[in-house]
């Protein structure tokens, strides 16, 4: 086998693997990514029932109700709109009324957001980034929510810290 043939074999192989990877990525992008919405965006866009997305906002004070068997319901608000959320399981350590939250799930037929995951990654100086950005954009940001964002969360030093699901699921 000549040098040229050898090189063609390697290039051909590389292209094949690259094409495979590209096909896999494009296929995965079709249905495995999850979009982020706020209650206002949900109200405006009429998200259809059953489509998964991430809902972010503040937990409406006074809306938290605990039922039997760890069933929980609360409302997520962003100042303009509210959306009822139902969840079953243990809420994160940092879940509090009036604080930021991100929930992942889908709307049911009655317009209730059925969450299978609730993430609340923040302490007194840190808000989930999606929520903070959305609130800022809609003009509901109060300076006392934020503080120095880089301060409480040190993702670098730790894998643990860095991931939102990790903090609490």
């Amino acid at each position, binding site marked *: 086998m000549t040098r040229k043939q050898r090189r063609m074999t390697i290039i051909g192989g590389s292209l094949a*693997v690259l094409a495979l990877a590209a096909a896999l990525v494009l296929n995965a*992008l079709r249905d*495995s990514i999850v979009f982020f919405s706020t209650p206002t965006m949900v109200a405006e866009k009429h998200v259809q029932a059953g489509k998964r997305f991430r809902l972010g906002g503040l937990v409406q004070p006074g809306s938290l109700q605990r039922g039997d068997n760890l069933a929980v319901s609360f409302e997520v608000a962003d100042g303009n709109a509210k959306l009822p959320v139902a969840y079953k399981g243990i*809420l994160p350590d940092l879940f509090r009324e009036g604080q930021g939250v991100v929930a992942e799930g889908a709307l049911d037929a009655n317009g209730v957001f059925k969450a299978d995951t609730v993430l609340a990654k923040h302490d007194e100086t840190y808000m989930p*980034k999606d929520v903070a950005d959305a609130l800022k954009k809609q003009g509901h940001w109060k300076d006392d929510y934020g503080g120095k964002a*880089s301060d409480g969360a040190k*993702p670098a030093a730790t*894998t643990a810290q860095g991931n939102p699901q990790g903090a*609490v699921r």
Partner: protein
Amino acid sequence: MIAESGHYALVLALGLALIQSIVPLIGARLRDDALMNVARSTALAQLLFVGASFVALVMLHVNSDFSVANVYENSHSMKPLLYKITGVWGNHEGSMLLWVSILALFGGLVAAFGNNLPLSLRAHVLAVQAWIASAFYLFILVTSNPFLRIASPPIEGRDLNPVLQDIGLAVHPPMLYLGYVGFSISFSFAIAALMEGRIDAAWARWVRPWTLVAWIFLTLGIAMGSYWAYYELGWGGWWFWDPVENASLMPWLAGTALLHSALVMEKRNALKVWTILLSILTFSLSLLGTFLVRSGVITSVHAFATDPTRGVFILLILCLFIGGSLSLFAGRATSLKQGGLFAPISREGALVLNNLLLTVACAVVLFGTLYPLAMEMLADFKMSVGAPFYNLTFAPLFTLLLLAVPFGPMLAWKRGDLLGVTQRLLAAGVAGLVVVAIVWAWTRGGSALAPLAIGLGVFVIAGAVTDLVERTGLVRLPFATVLHRTRGLPRSAWGSALAHAGLGVALIGIVCETTWNSEYIATMKQSDVAHVAGYDVKLDGLFQRQGPNYREMIAEFNVSRDGEALSVMTPSKRSFTTRGSSTTEAALLTRGASQLYISLGDANAEGAIAVRIYHKPLVLLIWWGPVLMAFGGVLSLSDRRLRVGAPKPARAKQRLQPAE
């Protein structure tokens, strides 16, 4: 005084690094040995001064000197001593100081033990190290100085984030940085080779041990971080495909590829250009990881835009080094001589395939990490790319890789015999299939993928064993010969077999944990019993306890199986008053490689508490695998032929002569 001394030492280190960046290069140009040797002394002095600076910061934290902003923000006088020390790198400024300290450590090691390097190569390598060091010293001094004082010192500090108050912080970041930053050595060697326009098999022999050291630490660092997340965060997850984790996984994938391509270069003098490129890419990915994590771009693209000094500074460093090194590569790579020929079916060919799959898998992770950031910046909508994406992309690529792993070491160099190797791997293949059948029958009706994946894991392990059996001639040859060959087998052969087997072990753990994980979530009252995976878990009661800087509520569980008491488990929930936040301390009961995992939720008014209990079958294999890989790496490293600073054969011969 300590703070000022630390600051001053850091400035001096910058000065030394600047000298080290320029003088040795002038020396190399003028062929002046004295000027080139400046690199050696400055590298060692740099290590001394950064070390002093780091020790100064540690002392400030240990003494709880709250007049220093960094200590005030991250420490508390009541914090246990261990966390006072580890808290040094549990924050941005301190962790950057650790980063440069480790960089200086590697530079110092090359200076101290690189005596057998050609003088000009060592001068070039140390100069490139000094460029990187200068950039990061400047970054620390300009944007993230850990030694800044507060005008009116507070009495008490704000404490360290409770999640970080754990032994994991003592081990994970230093390990990870030893890995990340260790790849700077292969980067510097690559740049030095390009600048000198000369590269040969000896180059690969010098680079390989350094790459291997970095790889071992990165492997252990990632595994340790994953285990830490698993027990500390309280819901039993061990990998989240989070950008921060991806930032450490990408250099690992590229570094693994580099380890293998350097092998081809050393043994066969082929793949030179590719090895150089991989060295550059691996360290570039380490820098990218540092940027992603340190610029705050992950926390929020907008936070990055509003407070851009740090982010822009690191971005500049990133562009300078990646852009500069790649342009140098583009300009000089063609001047490197082409190496030996090989047929596509050969050990070289297998290693090329390994490199191809690893780099493509790495590219997929890079895409998944950057795509959401790019979309947010360009199209202004948010999304998350999580586990489902990687399951559809990364998993198939890695499956292909794992299928190929057993074949690689058994193919001959230059021209291999695929059919022969397949025949020799028949036993391993059969072992894999038998396991598939057994698992299939045992878990009737379950997922079809799980038994197949476990079979693949067994195939990889059996393949590694087959390789050793073939090399030692076990079964075919008389016992005495086998013993002799076993003794003669280089340690690197044992190392690669162990590392490959580690992959299989980790895969089996991952599959078992994700497929047969059982979960019990409920509120429990005193003397309630939960039944999970054959275990009876009884809640005995709740207690309060005061810790050094927190209060904790402990729940005591009695665990029994078939009426036989096994153990008492005490998960707890700690609340830290200073930060007003709480953490969940999970309790773990290890049985073989499986674990029972209990973590607590909120207690309600009637004295009942929300509890989650997991049974995680064979979960420990997930981390034993990487430990096995790292151990394989250590064995390879201890191989005489590879030992750091092993003498060149010619010189060894000379030394032997007088003895005769």
